[in-house]
């Protein structure tokens, strides 16, 4: 018997956590002598109040959907992939190599090619920790976090020494050919005769992210591979009994996870900066962990959580711009949201479960 109805589990609990986090954030803002109400309205106004704000919110959300899905797929195999950061960075390298060295005449051709490059590079970066975990038992948390550092250093080297155009002072690759630039949503809107989100980075990758949510859902809950991944994640001895090869499934799950993280590069590298720059991922790999946690490792939850974090990112930027609340405080607010929705989940969940149990018992007694 479930302790409480599904809607309370999936919607109510994170919502209460969120309100608690906001409450404490408000206290912090009060303590530094600013108005919490003004901060909130600035954030909402800046992130959701205009198509400009939405354009940025959705752009960030797209990044977080990919990294969140990456964490989720690994999680269902009981693997904690915190290497999304490095895998996404490597995905960026894949995108850059494809777009710089393959003559692709149109973005319609460049997109699938770049996706293959991004997914392959991200997956390859996840492969080594995966094989070390599966074959030798090296803990994947340790190896993936190490691989984040290696990726950052390797990318640094590649950008400075190999991809930097001659004469440039900037540790970044050359611009990708214009023909490969992805249409932004504002351009699509303009094509339809609407004025929406001018000068915002959100692009067609957002639709890819939504599609990825659907595909990952189908993978985990509808395919045989997903069944095997979930079975392994719940019980390795059980999986072995059932003839599921743990090495094989561990590696496959991590390849998919790394591939998804790598696909994030389509959004930020191909869609936004249109060249490869240093630290292009900007922490989205780590935010993905919080997104997956808050989204309860379900694509729909991840979609919502990614939107929330997109809002926090964009709203936070606005806050720094328009108020004297320092930028560091925005990180505090984001951290509070992660803390309450992720780490302190049970603090809300358990009292809530008691409430629902008591309600059910009263109903039973009344009958």
């Amino acid at each position: 018997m479930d302790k409480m109805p599904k809607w309370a589990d999936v919607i109510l609990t994170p919502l209460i956590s969120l309100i608690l986090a906001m409450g404490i954030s408000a206290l912090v803002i009060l303590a530094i002598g600013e108005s919490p109400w003004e901060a909130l309205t600035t954030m909402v106004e800046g992130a959701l109040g205009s198509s400009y704000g939405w354009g940025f919110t959705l752009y960030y959300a797209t990044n977080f959907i990919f990294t969140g899905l990456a964490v989720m797929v690994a999680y269902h195999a009981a693997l904690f992939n915190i290497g999304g950061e490095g895998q996404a960075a490597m995905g960026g390298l894949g995108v850059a190599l494809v777009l710089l060295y393959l003559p692709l005449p149109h973005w319609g051709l460049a997109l699938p090619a770049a996706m293959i490059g991004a997914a392959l590079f991200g997956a390859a970066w996840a492969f080594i920790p995966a094989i070390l975990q599966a074959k030798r038992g090296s803990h994947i948390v340790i190896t993936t976090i190490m691989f984040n550092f290696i990726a950052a250093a390797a990318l640094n080297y590649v950008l400075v020494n190999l991809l930097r155009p001659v004469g440039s002072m900037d540790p970044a690759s050359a611009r990708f050919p214009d023909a490969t630039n992805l249409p932004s949503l504002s351009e699509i809107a303009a094509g339809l005769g609407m004025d929406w989100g001018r000068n915002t980075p959100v692009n067609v990758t957002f639709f890819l992210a939504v599609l990825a949510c659907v595909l990952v859902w189908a993978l985990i809950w509808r395919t045989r591979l997903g069944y095997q991944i979930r079975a392994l994640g719940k019980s390795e001895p059980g999986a072995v009994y059932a003839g599921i090869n743990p090495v094989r499934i561990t590696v496959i799950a991590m390849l998919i996870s790394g591939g998804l993280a790598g696909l994030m590069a389509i959004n930020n590298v191909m869609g936004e900066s249109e060249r490869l720059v240093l630290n292009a991922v900007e922490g989205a790999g780590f935010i993905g962990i919080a997104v997956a946690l808050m989204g309860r490792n379900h694509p729909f939850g991840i979609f919502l959580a990614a939107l929330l974090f997109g809002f926090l990112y964009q709203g936070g930027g606005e806050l720094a711009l328009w108020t004297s609340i320092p930028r560091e405080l925005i990180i505090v607010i984001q951290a509070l949201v992660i803390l309450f929705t992720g780490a302190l989940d049970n603090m809300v969940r358990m009292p809530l479960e008691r409430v629902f149990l008591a309600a059910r018992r009263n109903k039973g007694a009344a009958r």
Partner: protein
Amino acid sequence: MVAAGNLMGGRSDAAAPAAIELRGISKAFGPVQANRDINLHVPKGSIHGIIGENGAGKSTLMSILYGFYKPDAGEILVNGRPITIADSQTAIRAGIGMVFQHFKLVQNFTVLENIILGVEDGALLRPSLSKARGVLKRLAAEYQLNVDPDETVENLSVGHQQRVEILKALYRQADILILDEPTGVLTPAEADHLFRILEGLKAEGKTIILITHKLREIMEITDNVSVMRRGEMVASVRTAETSPEQLAELMVGRKVLLNVQKAPARPQAPVLEVRDLAMVDAEGVERLRSISFDIRAGEILGLAGVSGNGQTQLLEILGGYPPKGARISGTVRMNGAPLPLSGRGCDAGQRRRDGIGHIPEDRQVEGLIMDFAAWENVAFGWHDAPEFNKGWVMDNDAIRRDAEAKMERFDVRPRDANLAARNFSGGNQQKIVVAREIERNPDLLLIGQPTRGVDIGAIEFIHKQIVALRDAGKAILLVSVELDEILSLSDRVAVMFDGRIMGERLPGQTTTGELGLLMAGVTDSDGVPPGPARVTDLPEGRA
């Protein structure tokens, strides 16, 4: 209904003062009423049995007595005085000691260190240790509780570890000793020795509460017995005035056949032929030593033995998933064709396709994914089967239909295929596994501990299904630590000890005593299991 109610309560109050008396104890966990209005009267200096099916509320009641749970209502009296047991420290001070089913010993501490753990007299260990040594010597002499005080616990046999637990309780001056399923891990000889210890403790005026599901033990050793069913105490009777049949009926609430009804086996050609099978595990320990046996179509071969003597490894090898890093030699033939014992061909999925079904020893860790719904578990291990798949995608509707049909035929309750496996009782979980494996109609069915933690009603059902499969001309390997189960189901009984098959008997022509000797590797009446050096080849060794 047979003599139910709390007969002794009024009758013996005056005669013997109660060591423990419970009045109207109730405890609920959420909507589940684990204990309802429990009354219990345990006279001082008696052995009192408490029996009941899984989930009847025995463990909850004992946890209340030991201070793990606070009752919602009711009163506890120890030696006539009302007492509130807030935690286990209070229980210990009140003279209550507990021996858990799963021992709570620090494996790499010595016996003495374990005994003083938590009751050290000061910052320095030496005085406590020497005091404990003295007390231990006295206790050992008094109650036949011999253990080497300086031996590390991990080097002790299970029977000896249990003695350490009892000594721990006695060292804390327990007057009332609660034992939770104490014989589950013991050989018959070790169990007999335990019972002699308990008799000795009783003679010294100690009170013992014995929780068990084995009716034979209740009849053998207890003075009084209380029966629990669905959270209620349905009867308390004098053991001498009852019978196993009556107790079983009280436990289940209906008449139960304790013995399996089956026709003589009609064995045909051998299905499984095992020759000189040996295995050395990754640590270099020999787990199986040159095992040979046959199972023919239409017969049940029972494999008796105390757990940990190689049965698990044997099942895993036959099931296609030998332990990692194991070295295996010998041959196994299935319907005449050799089965690969290592490498690529040795695969649990391939074994299923070869016609081997497997009900694993631990349904909660291996046999089921506890968080999966019942319907998902019905495809577990068979998820490659064509009828469950449409290409890459699983045909969830087909699996659901199949699950519902199986749950119907095997009377799994509640009949809700969407419920997670963890929310079924032990018996119903096992029925899901049994249904899944038997309905595949395997040529050979491997069964490990089919009824461990399963209530009596479900045991009866599962046993019938196993016999029906045999009568359909299939070969069955039955591994169980329950000797009664082995004797009543098997057509032939082989006994394992220390990785060997010690001998083979026909169930009609042997006794539990004889099998018990084999299970202990031919032991003396003392019940001390000998080291491997004592093991000699029996003339009965398998041909």
